């Protein structure tokens, strides 16, 4: 086996000398398929959408493959009612609202975002780790610190860990709103609702936590092959190479391409932590999808004392920004350029919907890699 330095391992996965022959081989395989139409491949994760567009993989393979962009963008799928809820919490004088970066630029129904509320003098903090909120809470004993937690299973354990620390330390002024959503449930829902794809690139980092098994059930149920992929251009091309083979063989199974990070069983310690702290909600609103049963997490009884929703219930109705297709795009039913606002009223500087805000949003990907001069 080759003895490569760490830096060489890292560059291999984006080395054009490696990618070119891999791409040619893939094109040969695709040419041999001779399907009536292009094959449709869903990449669940918005991180994958960005890699595919940044490296022009969609254009290089456009003759054979249509990429359907999925709902795996945690900022994008937060329902408008939940954004309005975050804004209402941030407006309170007795509250410091803490959340992860991208969310603060998503406009609420009144057009204002958390960033603008902060500019008006309200206390909104961006944290780069859930545990930073503990420091904020300790430094501000007279305020209620509310962590507006978002994310798929990739960040759910982080919030579970925080919840346990709050309990252990007996902190009284640190609360959490859980907007944690379940990737397998939304993919199942999407396919039940009739989204037709030939193969799926499954999310690599969600799978680092949950493992490959949950995808196997879905793959079998919907008779659709899936490959769990990493986030370098090599990873995408190799995943497509596997997928095209599975599609050709009509073999609805799951393969893990991202073996350097994803174990078949996932991260068992993180799974246990999630199970200890969270349980499925009866239903939860998603942008574009409406209410989806058992698709998100709430705190178990033992942690209900830190659930901000028990004290300040969310009472907002769904209200999609006029003309914004973000919700439709998240369901794989439209492409960003089909939105009348795209690149005109809606740009990264003046986003109307979250798909133009988030680094995992499909609209931002098309704006950055297809529109910019």
């Amino acid at each position, binding site marked *: *086996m*080759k003895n*490569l330095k*760490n830096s060489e*391992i*890292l560059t*291999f996965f984006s080395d054009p000398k*490696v990618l070119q*022959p*891999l791409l*040619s*081989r893939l094109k040969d395989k695709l040419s041999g398929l001779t399907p009536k139409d292009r094959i449709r491949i869903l990449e669940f*994760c*918005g*991180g994958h959408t960005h890699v595919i567009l940044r490296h022009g993989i969609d254009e290089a393979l456009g003759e054979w493959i249509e990429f359907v962009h999925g709902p*795996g963008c*945690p*900022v994008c799928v937060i329902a408008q009612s939940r954004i309005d809820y975050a804004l209402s919490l941030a407006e309170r004088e007795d509250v410091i609202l803490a959340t*992860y970066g*991208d969310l603060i630029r998503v406009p609420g129904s009144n057009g204002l975002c958390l960033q603008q509320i902060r500019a008006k003098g309200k206390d909104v903090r961006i944290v*780069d*780790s*859930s*545990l*930073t909120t503990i420091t904020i809470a300790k430094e501000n004993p007279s305020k209620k610190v509310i962590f507006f937690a*978002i*994310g*798929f299973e*990739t*960040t759910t*354990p*982080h919030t579970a*860990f925080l919840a346990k620390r709050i309990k252990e330390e007996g902190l009284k002024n640190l609360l959490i709103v859980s907007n944690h959503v379940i990737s397998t449930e939304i993919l199942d829902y999407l396919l039940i609702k009739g989204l037709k794809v030939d193969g799926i690139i499954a*999310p690599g*980092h*969600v799978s*680092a*936590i949950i493992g490959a098994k949950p995808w196997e059930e879905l793959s079998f149920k919907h008779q659709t092959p899936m490959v769990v992929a990493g*986030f370098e251009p*090599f990873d995408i091309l*190799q995943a497509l190479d596997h997928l095209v083979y599975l599609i050709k063989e009509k073999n609805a199974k799951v393969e893990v391409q991202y*073996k*350097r*990070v*994803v*174990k078949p069983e996932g*991260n*068992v*310690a*993180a799974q246990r*932590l999630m199970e200890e702290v969270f349980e499925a909600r009866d239903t939860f609103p998603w942008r574009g999808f409406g209410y989806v049963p058992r698709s998100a997490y709430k705190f178990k009884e033992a942690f209900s004392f830190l659930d901000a929703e028990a004290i300040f219930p969310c009472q907002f109705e769904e209200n999609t920004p006029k003309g914004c297709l973000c919700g439709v795009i998240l369901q794989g039913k439209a492409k960003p350029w089909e939105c009348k606002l795209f690149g005109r009223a809606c740009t990264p500087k003046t986003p109307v919907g979250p798909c133009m805000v988030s*680094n*995992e949003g499909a609209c931002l990907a098309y704006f950055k890699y297809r529109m910019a001069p």
Partner: protein
Amino acid sequence: MCLGYPFKILEVTSPFTALAESKGVKKEIYISLLPEEVKPGDWVLVHVGFAIAKVDEEQALQTINFWDEELEKL
């Protein structure tokens, strides 16, 4: 949020934390979510402050070698 970055462990600073580096940026990260122990020199995948998985160097090399051989056949 789902964008994770590989970091190299420089020093394990407590049972919960480690000093790690990625592309010249040094950062304190939490290692409490990992099911296995880490030591200096290990690579981990970091998501919003926490390492969520150890990057398996052996597996990375296997992938590389497999493809080197495959591509030589072309």
